[in-house]
């Protein structure tokens, strides 16, 4: 397991992805699962920065670990409460011009990982857990 904190800035997206990737590789997760997890992590972190902190300074704590046959990434922030699991998925049976705006990043998160869990953190803020079968 590895945990690190990052300033919530878009310039840190690549740094956070690299942290998640290198930790997952050291845990010997399979690369296809890592690739999917990175897409989800990036979307989640981008949402935290752009919509959560919305230009205000803050930090994002990322924890990467293995639990059984799953790779788990936990993201914690101190932005205003936002539960992405309550965002309704887009109806993909509708042609794009009829779909409601918003929710693209959350849709991608749901697609790339097996489980998404949200909690309000005990110390305040948000805690998002992404789970992907990877071993």
């Amino acid at each position, binding site marked *: 397991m590895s945990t690190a904190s990052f300033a919530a800035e*878009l*310039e840190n*997206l*690549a740094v956070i*992805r690299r942290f998640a990737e290198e930790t997952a590789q050291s845990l010997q997760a399979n690369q296809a699962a890592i*690739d*999917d997890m*990175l*897409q989800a992590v*990036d*979307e989640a972190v*981008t949402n935290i*920065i*752009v919509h959560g902190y919305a230009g205000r300074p803050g930090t994002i704590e990322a924890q990467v670990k293995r639990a059984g046959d799953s790779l788990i990434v936990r993201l914690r922030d101190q932005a205003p409460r936002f539960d992405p699991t309550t965002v309704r998925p*887009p109806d*993909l049976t509708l*042609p*794009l*011009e*009829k*779909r*409601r*705006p*918003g*929710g*693209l*990043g959350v*849709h*991608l998160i749901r*697609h*790339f990982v097996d489980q998404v869990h949200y909690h309000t953190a005990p110390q305040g803020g948000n805690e998002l857990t992404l789970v992907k079968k990877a071993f």
Partner: protein
Amino acid sequence: MNVSASQAQGRVPVTILSIQGDLDGSNYQDLIAKAQELYQAGTRRLILDMTDLRFMSSSGIVALHSIALLMRGDQPPDPAQGWAAFHAVARDSAELQQHVKLLNPQPRVDRALEVAGLKTFFEIHTDLATAVASF
């Protein structure tokens, strides 16, 4: 992310914009700005060479759409609208293919295109000569 432009001549002049590195929320607007420069310099047919693009998030997907609109002389929508940007993609899908085509997206990027539903809206090639000749 680095971008570099080159020219090719098929039935019409074609600009090839090679994108190297990662395309995410920190730099997608730079790519749009580069495409804008090319348009102002006379480019109307563009191949986005994704051979060396390692990662693309939903921000990159919105950039692709914005570039397609730019190349036909339209103002791209506000990228912050997310799905609303894709509504315009769906409306304009046939014409988009006349202006911007994708070359050689790597598996990770190809998957992001697929999940976002964009593979039906952009013609994708794996060979540069074929891509140039397709305009």
